[in-house]
């Protein structure tokens, strides 16, 4: 402890240390010279002898610095100064080296950010290890691809045949719509998801409920689920709004529920409406994405069988 303290003091109050060292040794030589003079030596001669017998003040000072642990910081500083001088002499080399380092560090940072978000951080949903998305696997001559954009018939096949998984389908994007409630109009983002979508993700609405199968079919009642942020902003977190009517794209919709504040949407969205998947229309093209959760008590081996 004493050494750390002494070393740190020496390092941070360097000029004071140097001044003290010089004045201490000077004082020593002067006292010795005065003593020699008192013994009858001539003043100038006394000074000369005192200096001579003390020896090199520079060498003594260097040994003192070493004694308090200043040798390696001194040498490090010297090496750094030398490095700077050499780099300054060859600016082209320096620029190339700095550019190389910058590129490497930049590329690594980008790659790590992606790996961190995609691989290291778990999905923001409960039991993320049991969640998966459904993809079509294409295999051609020497090429291979996975496509997560599916059409209505594929979704129906998953829904009807995969007994071990709880699946939901959604539109993999959001669109801007006009939202009117209580005399206020706002442009918000809407995403369409099927019944059970939030259940599959493991999210329970804060108030109200999510879509039922009855609402998620062609011609079903017009309903909407709100995000926590929208609910807070437009309804001042009023818990009695469930069942109220709001205008969405000029059509009346009934509020079914509000999602919890911590819910993180897959795509940016302020509210959700039923997807009402079909085989025709948009369902004839690859406009759907399927998310599924392994049912509790089942294993991946069973689901794959």
């Amino acid at each position, binding site marked *: 402890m*004493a050494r750390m303290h*002494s070393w740190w003091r020496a390092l941070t109050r360097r000029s004071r240390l140097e001044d003290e*060292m010089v004045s201490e040794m000077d*004082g*020593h030589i002067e006292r010795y010279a*005065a003593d020699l003079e008192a013994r009858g030596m001539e003043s100038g001669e006394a000074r000369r002898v005192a200096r001579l017998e003390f020896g090199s003040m520079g060498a*003594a000072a260097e*040994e*003192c610095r070493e004694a308090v642990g200043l040798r390696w910081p001194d040498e490090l500083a010297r090496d750094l100064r030398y490095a700077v001088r050499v780099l300054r002499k060859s600016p082209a080399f320096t620029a190339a080296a700095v550019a190389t380092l910058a590129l490497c560090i930049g590329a690594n940072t980008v790659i790590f950010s992606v790996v961190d978000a995609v691989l290291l951080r778990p999905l923001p949903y409960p039991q993320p290890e049991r969640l998966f998305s459904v993809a079509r696997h294409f295999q051609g001559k020497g090429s291979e691809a996975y496509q997560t954009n599916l059409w209505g018939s594929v979704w129906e096949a998953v829904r009807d045949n995969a007994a071990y998984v709880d699946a939901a389908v959604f539109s993999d994007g959001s669109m801007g719509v006009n939202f009117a409630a209580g005399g206020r109009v706002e442009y918000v983002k809407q995403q369409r998801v099927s019944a059970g979508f939030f259940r599959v993700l493991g999210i329970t609405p804060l108030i109200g409920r999510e879509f039922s199968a009855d609402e998620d079919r062609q011609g079903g009642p017009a309903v909407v689920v709100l995000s926590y942020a929208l609910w807070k902003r437009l309804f001042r977190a009023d818990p009695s709004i469930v069942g109220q009517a709001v205008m969405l794209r000029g059509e009346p919709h009934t509020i079914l529920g509000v999602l919890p504040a911590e819910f993180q949407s897959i795509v940016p969205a302020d509210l959700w409406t039923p997807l009402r998947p079909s085989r025709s229309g948009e369902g004839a093209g690859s406009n759907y994405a399927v998310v599924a959760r392994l049912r509790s008590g089942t294993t991946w081996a069973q689901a794959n069988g």
Partner: protein
Amino acid sequence: MGKQVDILQGTLDMLILKAVSLGPLHGYGILLRIQQISKDALQIPQGSLYPALYRLEHRGWIAAEWGESENKRKAKYYRLTAVGRKQLKSERKEWKRLAVAIADVLAAEPEEA
């Protein structure tokens, strides 16, 4: 002035600790005190005194403080710390053991056949 003896390697620290254990001293004062007590037999190389002082201060065995000296000049005074006192005690013990051992060796008589 009597005959001078070179001080043994490693004994300078002990001598300094002993000198300042008798009361705070500046560097030159330490030199004088050691010479005076040893009746000028021990001569400390002046250049190696300060590195030793800085080393001992760094280890926390002595502490330094700037004060005014006899002729109204500023001087750095060293005094023994509690840790230093302990260190001096153990060094003295070691030294005694060494001195006894060397004396024993030198006093050995040739064995009778």
